[in-house]
């Protein structure tokens, strides 16, 4: 029994660690969006501010990327949902002998690396364009068109899988009955099959849009000279970062949380409805009157979530705008003082050094060694942290207050340097 408890404790610890790993980075990123520091970080905390959301709203490149992304997302939904549906319907009717081959072909885009899909799409339409003698301005050289096609290649396979799962629960007898009663095949499709597939069409559309919205690997090759949100973000993150990206992440995380909550509520309601219909079918329950549309939209839980979101955003925004300037001046003042103190200390130290050479001899060679070792390892270590901080680091240990120290090393901060050089 004892070993059982020990094991249970370790399992709980493991699960806790897993979720910490899953959410820790996101929480930290969220926090950095509200720190007024010009570099995204949590410690040292400077001022609580919402200014990075303002910076985000004024970023023209990002907004253009966002517009393109939305447009591409809608395009992908329009292409991949009908294609996926056709593919799923085909699978149910294709000959037994050909089915494995057919399935392998249509499922393969999921398993092919996105990079390969992007490249092949780009090359194919380029060659087609040459074959038909199209000009460079035509559709086949348009980044947005190519991206819609390239992404749809594999997103159609996702939607197809959703449709297949739903079609497996479809009773083909219903359609046959309708046709026996004189319905045309189109009527049977629109009156029987489509209503049955409606929820799946909705979820397939959402899935397709989200998959398109966050795709990078395929897009980066097919987009050519245009830009999407992900490509703009990628170039921003690679060459110099600031907290407005965190602000964007906060918005996305908030939307996701909202979506997950809505999804959960809808699912619960669906389960409840299913239970109800089952009970009605068994005759255990009188068929209840259906709720009116208004009552269904205005679910108390949904209203609660909506209000909480508005309240949260409002509080954060107002808290972020109030007193930021005063706080900033204080922080700037503090920083200045610390730097001054530091300079003074270094001056003193320089004086001491000439007076006490013994201390110098013990520390200096060590540092020297480190620098050369790092230097031979790779030439890029010119931008290395250690080399840069070789001077201020020993200094750090002498001071008594570590917190102010962190701010003090700001100017020597390698990440600040990175911003200009890029890590590539």
């Amino acid at each position: 029994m004892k070993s059982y408890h020990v094991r249970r404790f370790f399992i709980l610890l493991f699960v806790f660690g897993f979720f910490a790993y899953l959410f820790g980075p996101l929480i930290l990123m969220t926090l950095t969006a509200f720190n007024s520091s010009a570099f995204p970080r949590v410690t040292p905390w400077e001022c609580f501010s919402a200014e990075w959301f303002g910076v985000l709203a004024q970023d023209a490149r990002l907004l253009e990327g966002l517009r393109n992304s939305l447009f591409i997302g809608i395009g992908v939904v329009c292409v991949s949902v009908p294609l996926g549906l056709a593919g799923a319907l085909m699978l149910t009717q294709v000959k037994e002998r050909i089915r494995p081959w057919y399935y392998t072909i249509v499922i393969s885009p999921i398993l092919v690396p996105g990079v390969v899909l992007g490249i092949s799409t780009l090359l194919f339409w380029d060659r087609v364009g040459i074959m038909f003698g199209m000009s460079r301005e035509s559709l086949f050289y348009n980044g947005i068109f190519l991206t819609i096609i390239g992404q749809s290649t594999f997103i159609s396979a996702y939607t197809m899988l959703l449709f297949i799962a739903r079609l497996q629960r479809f009773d083909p007898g219903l359609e046959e009955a309708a046709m026996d009663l004189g319905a045309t095949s189109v009527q049977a499709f629109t009156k029987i099959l489509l209503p049955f597939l409606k929820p799946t069409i909705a979820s397939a559309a959402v899935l397709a849009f989200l998959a398109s919205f966050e795709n990078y690997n395929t897009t980066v090759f097919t987009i050519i000279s245009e830009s999407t949100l992900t490509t703009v973000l990628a170039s921003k993150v690679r060459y110099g970062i600031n907290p407005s990206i965190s602000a964007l992440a906060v918005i996305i995380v908030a939307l996701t949380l909202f979506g997950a909550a809505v999804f959960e509520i809808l699912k619960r309601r669906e389960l409840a409805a299913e239970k109800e219909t089952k009970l009605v079918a068994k005759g255990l329950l009188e068929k209840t009157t259906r709720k009116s549309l208004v009552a269904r939209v205005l679910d108390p839980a949904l209203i609660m979530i909506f209000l909480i979101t508005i309240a949260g955003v409002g509080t954060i925004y107002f808290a972020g705008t109030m007193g930021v300037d005063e706080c900033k001046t204080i922080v700037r003042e503090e920083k200045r003082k610390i730097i001054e103190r530091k300079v003074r200390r270094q001056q003193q130290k320089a004086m001491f050094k000439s007076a006490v050479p013994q201390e110098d001899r013990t520390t200096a060679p060590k540092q020297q060694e480190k620098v050369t070792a790092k230097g031979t390892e790779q030439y890029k270590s010119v931008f290395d942290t250690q080399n840069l901080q070789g001077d201020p680091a020993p200094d750090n240990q002498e001071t008594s207050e570590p917190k102010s120290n962190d701010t003090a090393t700001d100017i020597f901060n390698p990440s600040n340097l990175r911003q200009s050089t890029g890590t590539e």
Partner: protein
Amino acid sequence: MKAYWKQFYLKNGKILGSYILIACIFWMLVMIILPQIFMVDFSLRTNVPPPKWGTEVHSYTLEHYKYMVYGSAKAQQSYNVVDLTVFFRTIWAAIMVTIIDLSLCYPVAYFIAHVAKGGWARLMAVSLIVPFWVNEILRAFAFKIMFGSSGVINNFLVWSGILSQPYDFIRDNWALWAGLSYAFILLMIFPIYNAVETLDKNQIEAARDLGSPWWRIHWRVVIPHAKPGISSGCTMVFMLAAGTLAAPQILGGPSSLWFTQIIYQAFNQAGNWARGSAYALVLLITCIIFVLFVMKVFKVKLGEIAR
């Protein structure tokens, strides 16, 4: 065959039947098969500027594949050490990421499916979705912030006295490993969770009642049942890790390249599309081999992997 099409049209009607047929042929031919054939064709031709494509200068050659193995004729080494090293390191790293994710996800998936109680289990399952829909690039960005030399981890380590000065996690690829494992963790946990969840609890109970220790229950009951999920997760994670571009671009140290980055450079910086597509084809073939390998080892069908 004729009878089959007659039946097909009779069932679907003219409009719908034609639509299904045209849509499927368009998808399969124009979007899937032909682009791949064109890429293979392109990778087997000389590298000439776009206006000369399709002319006599654009002839067939194996030079790009040779280049990947032997390097340029002028180089001193007899093999293309840089590209080959990057290739094998990418494959190795992708396998490692797969193993890390599997060892992280299996216990958690089992926990959510069978140990956790009602409300908690649902909450955990839903909360798994949230990080999944946060952009790949933003996830990498979060790790860059965290592992940076003034990031939370370094600040904590220095503050607590474990390190005397910040450690460059990014240059030594710690950030890349953590970020990659994070990026694909959900593609591992969902298939395993779905597979484990369908296991009848009574089977576990029965094994326990018959005196089986916990590890043997997993080895003989749970893992065999979850096999399709495990193989599906492993394949997806391996493919995505080997084919990823964003995370190595953002989190990779200055000295470490990913194979996709070489492809990207061939396209966007060197302007050598032919070599880029040759390398992309090598990546594709590697992935196909891996899928076939997994299908063989786990004895599963393709349909069970792609879900």
